[in-house]
């Protein structure tokens, strides 16, 4: 039971971590606003489902599309102007951007948790001693398939190849006629999609509340454990974090769950500084 619920949360962490990796790979920026892009996505879903009363699929499409646009907008308004400037200033921008996004959300929707709404129809399935909810099964399936689609995009398409090229050197790919700006904004848009879907799914189980942004915090160790450059690693890292969080909080106590994730992160960093699937630095002698 613990394993299953852990894996389900883990798939969502993995998806959010994937968004983190996409941005890092293309622009070497750690996007600390990822958790708040997630929050915004979740609230936009709630808004279109409850306030606008849209059917499920329409609400999903609308909020995920909005997440894509938010990602692109953030890139265009802030980071594009900082291309070529020190990385630390970009990272600082993302940290404070997260506060701006949080403020925006609480300004519009208030700071109290919103009325609960499930994403998928909720019913339980029994498999022997296991009790599963359709809600979490569907969330698990959706998170994994979106993550799979993003990885396939990255790996097999021209655009995906261009994104991996941009990750290695902006000037080099510009000399081949590839627009770095377009690729960067695409990677932010995709990160926005991953964050929104993660937020919506988490909102369905935890409720739509400001605390959802914490998932962004858990996605960071997931990305680091997998290796910051590896989309597959991010998903596996997410699963690992989800599992360990749920098992530790089940056997040791609720409070121990989240710190356990960070203990694993620190241990990984000590023994494998590049994470499990990160790119090793190539140095020819």
């Amino acid at each position: 039971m613990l394993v299953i619920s852990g894996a389900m949360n883990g798939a969502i962490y993995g998806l959010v971590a994937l968004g983190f990796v996409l941005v890092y790979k293309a622009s070497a920026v750690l996007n600390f606003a990822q958790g708040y892009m997630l929050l915004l996505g979740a609230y936009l879903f709630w808004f279109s489902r409850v306030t606008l009363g849209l059917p499920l699929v329409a609400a999903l499409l609308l909020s995920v599309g909005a997440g894509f646009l938010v990602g692109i907008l953030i890139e265009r308004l802030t980071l594009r102007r900082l291309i070529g400037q020190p990385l630390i200033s970009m990272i600082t921008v993302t940290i404070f951007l997260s506060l701006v996004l949080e403020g925006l959300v609480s300004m519009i929707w208030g700071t109290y948790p919103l009325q609960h709404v499930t994403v998928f129809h909720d019913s339980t399935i029994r498999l022997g001693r296991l009790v599963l909810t359709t809600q979490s099964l569907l969330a698990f399936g959706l998170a994994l398939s979106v993550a799979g689609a993003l990885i396939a995009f990255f790996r097999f398409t021209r655009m995906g190849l261009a994104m991996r090229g941009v990750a290695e050197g902006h000037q080099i790919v510009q000399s081949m006629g590839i627009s770095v700006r377009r690729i960067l904004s695409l990677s932010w848009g995709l990160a926005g999609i991953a964050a929104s879907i993660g937020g919506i799914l988490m909102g369905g189980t935890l409720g739509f509340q400001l605390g959802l942004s914490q998932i962004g915090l858990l996605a960071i160790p997931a990305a680091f454990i997998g290796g910051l450059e590896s989309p597959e690693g991010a998903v596996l890292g997410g699963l690992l974090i989800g599992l360990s969080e749920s098992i530790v909080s089940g056997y040791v106590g609720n409070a121990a769950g989240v710190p356990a994730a960070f203990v694993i992160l620190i241990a990984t960093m000590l023994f494998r500084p590049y994470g499990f699937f990160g790119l090793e630095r190539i140095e020819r002698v």
Partner: protein
Amino acid sequence: MLTLSNVEVKYAGVILVLRGVSLQVPEGKIVSLLGSNGAGKTTTLKAISGLLRTELGEVTAGAIEYQGRRIDRLDPEQIAKMGIIQVMEGRKVLKHLTVEENLRLGGYIRPNGEVRRDLERVYGYFPRLRSRRNAVSGYLSGGEQQMMLIGRAMMARPRLMLLDEPSMGLAPLIVREIYEIVRRLSAEERTTILLVEQNAKAALATSELAYVLENGRVVLDGPAAALADNEDIREFYLGLGKLGEKKSYRAVKTYKRRKRWL
């Protein structure tokens, strides 16, 4: 095909690197640009390809025209799409990608359907790349990397290729191989080539026209064969004395002839 008239380039608004460079690259020819370190050769190429603008450089006076259109205000990606591809010096491979991925990216601006055929063409020129197509490019030897970079530029089917020091740090045998490919590119693909080199001997033997750049100015130009016979070029760039015998280092030290053009 390409005309630079009185091009002046400043970095960061204050550092004057090119002080009025004028040169012409006629269609279908190999033109080389010689000069010592810091003469402004690479800057000239970057001014043409637009890459200058990614490093705070700017064309502050003069004009660069390509097929009758001014290109000195365009973005590097626009210029690449017009058919000018630069092979940067220092073997700038995308080192975590495989050889084939590097080549495919080179063909990014081409229609998707033709990438396959262009890959075959590049492998035809560089059989060694075919056997290493799935190798991570960061672990290739220097010669293989340089071949891959030329191949990557070929994937874009450029009409004008800007080659920056393809011989740098390579063994003489490999340099000869690479120059053989450059000649074939010109003869078989009708690619116009602007070549920057410190290896004056290899460059003059390959090209039809040559310019000599010093301190951000063109100081000599003419047919490559004529320059190879020029007394000053022989002395300062080819290291030969009056009668064609190699000079000893002692002679260079004790007597330094004034460069006539200064």
